[in-house]
């Protein structure tokens, strides 16, 4: 791994510098993660007196549990929808901002701040908008003949968390798309214009392909976001309901572990999630390695 051409000759100092971070990492990250792995192979008796080593029993049960499998597919639907919705909205907004000159900073300011809103607050905002009794959205939907009640209708509930989660992520994607658009060389666009391509054609044939690295990066980040950073949104809106319709993998780890106190299963679920994060990180870093080249 890279270091400086010449380095300081001190022997003990570097360890001293590393101690704080390594201590926190070992105590609060590595050790708990190992514990999770360990208890995913164990089963506690109902009174918590005795734990037995059960090999892959927790995993086996997990993967034949229709509830868990449905959570997997719910999570997938949620992640894909959030990614698609917020990325496409952001791309449109980024392209638009990139076209305006004087007002560009103003629009940017008005569009980026939701990044700083806590997911649980986002949940409450949309929960309020979609409140079946007094919310403005159900009111308007009723006007066009759609009845809305996310408390009883699983699809409504899913739509609600997708909208809320996408709303929060717009600002993030927007900023990265703007950065990506700004790095498209102006000369290419001018060359295409001289070749007779109109603005829409230019976008699809020149700009969009050149944005591919940004798009790919955001794809991974958004999936990651939808899976792991939306706990607060779900907890504030649907709490996984109705009837598990909006239970995501992360939310289930929490409910099974903390509320259901089923440590073995919850740990096995944690381990599955870790594997997913590792895979996503690996993909992301392969891509980053390549990007560092230039």
């Amino acid at each position, binding site marked *: 791994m890279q270091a400086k051409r010449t380095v300081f000759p001190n022997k003990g100092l570097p360890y001293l510098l590393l101690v704080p971070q390594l201590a926190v990492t070992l105590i609060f990250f*590595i050790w708990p993660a190992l*514990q999770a792995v360990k208890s995913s192979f164990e089963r506690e008796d109902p009174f918590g007196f005795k734990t037995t080593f059960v090999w892959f029993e927790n995993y086996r049960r997990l993967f034949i549990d229709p509830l868990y499998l449905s959570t997997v597919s719910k999570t997938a639907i949620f992640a894909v929808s959030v990614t698609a919705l917020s990325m496409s909205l952001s791309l449109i907004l980024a392209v638009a901002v990139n076209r305006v000159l004087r007002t560009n900073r103003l629009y940017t300011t008005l569009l980026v701040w939701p990044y700083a809103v806590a997911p649980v607050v986002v949940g409450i905002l949309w929960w309020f908008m979609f409140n079946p009794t007094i919310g403005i959205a159900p009111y308007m939907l009723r006007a066009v003949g759609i009845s809305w009640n996310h408390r009883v209708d699983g699809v409504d509930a899913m739509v609600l968390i997708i909208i809320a989660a996408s709303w929060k992520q717009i600002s993030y994607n927007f900023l990265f798309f703007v950065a990506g658009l700004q790095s498209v060389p102006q000369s290419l666009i001018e060359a295409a*214009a001289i070749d007779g391509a109109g603005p829409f054609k230019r976008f699809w044939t020149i700009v969009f392909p050149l944005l591919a690295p940004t798009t790919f990066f955001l794809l991974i980040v958004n999936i990651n976001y939808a899976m792991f950073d939306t706990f607060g949104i779900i907890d504030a809106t649907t709490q996984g309901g109705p009837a598990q319709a909006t239970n995501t993998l992360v939310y289930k780890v929490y409910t099974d572990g903390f509320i259901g106190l089923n440590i073995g299963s919850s740990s096995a679920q944690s381990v599955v999630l870790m594997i997913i994060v590792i895979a996503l990180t690996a993909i992301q870093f392969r891509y980053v390695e390549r990007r560092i080249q230039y």
Partner: protein
Amino acid sequence: MIENRPFLAFLTHLVLILGVVIVVFPVYLAFVASTHGSGDFMRGLVPLLPGPHMIENYSFMLNEGISTAGAPPLSIMLLNSLVMAISIAVGKIIISILSAYAIVFFKFPFRLLAFWTIFITLMLPVEVRIIPTFKVVADLGMLNSYPGLIIPLIASATATFLFRQFFLTVPDELMEAARVDGAGPMKFFRDILLPLSRTNIAALFVILFIYGWVQYLWPLLVTTDSRYYTIVMGIKRLAATADAEPQWNFVMAAVILAMLPPVLVVILMQRLFVKGLVETEK
């Protein structure tokens, strides 16, 4: 722009204005709700224009809170959030810059191992190791305390990587010149490297402050004593107590107050914010 097409320009602004409306509207509605009296939410549709009770609602929430919902005055929760967000940001920056310094400017046995140990934290978000981490904190007696809120969250691979990345771009000769000039490692760190990292530190601070402020699950787990509630988790308790009829005006006042500090940070330090966001993700 290359060509001047009035229709396209119109469309562009239309798209942007629509975007801004989508982004702003939910918050506008929350703000409006926070300015009404409790009785205004009975009529079947939320009010769409601000009402007269703004000061009253906010000062009630800030000073008294809703004790029936187990929520202390918001001023306490805001203070807790501030302490937590600032401590996390500062803590992360300190431990990350030190470890990045060790990794880039020294060669020592187990350097690679240290790097990978730090790297691994990227793959272990708190959401996937909730229970065992909670156990560790409980065993250490750190439940219901500031250290319990803060320390488990301050290991940060991204901040370490950002500093590492930046240190690698600092020309080798600068460190060599400093050594010839008689600066030892800590002197070089303090006199040269730290001043050069100023903008990076500031940008990182903005991002990490937001990160610390919006934490929800972790405070939810480790605090049961309302003296340590942060505003972001406290709000949930407010809203959840009477799901049938939350006191919308008060909940929304809390929502606005919970959003305001980090949103202001983003707006006022937009340049640093964008830099921090785009660079930490590289």
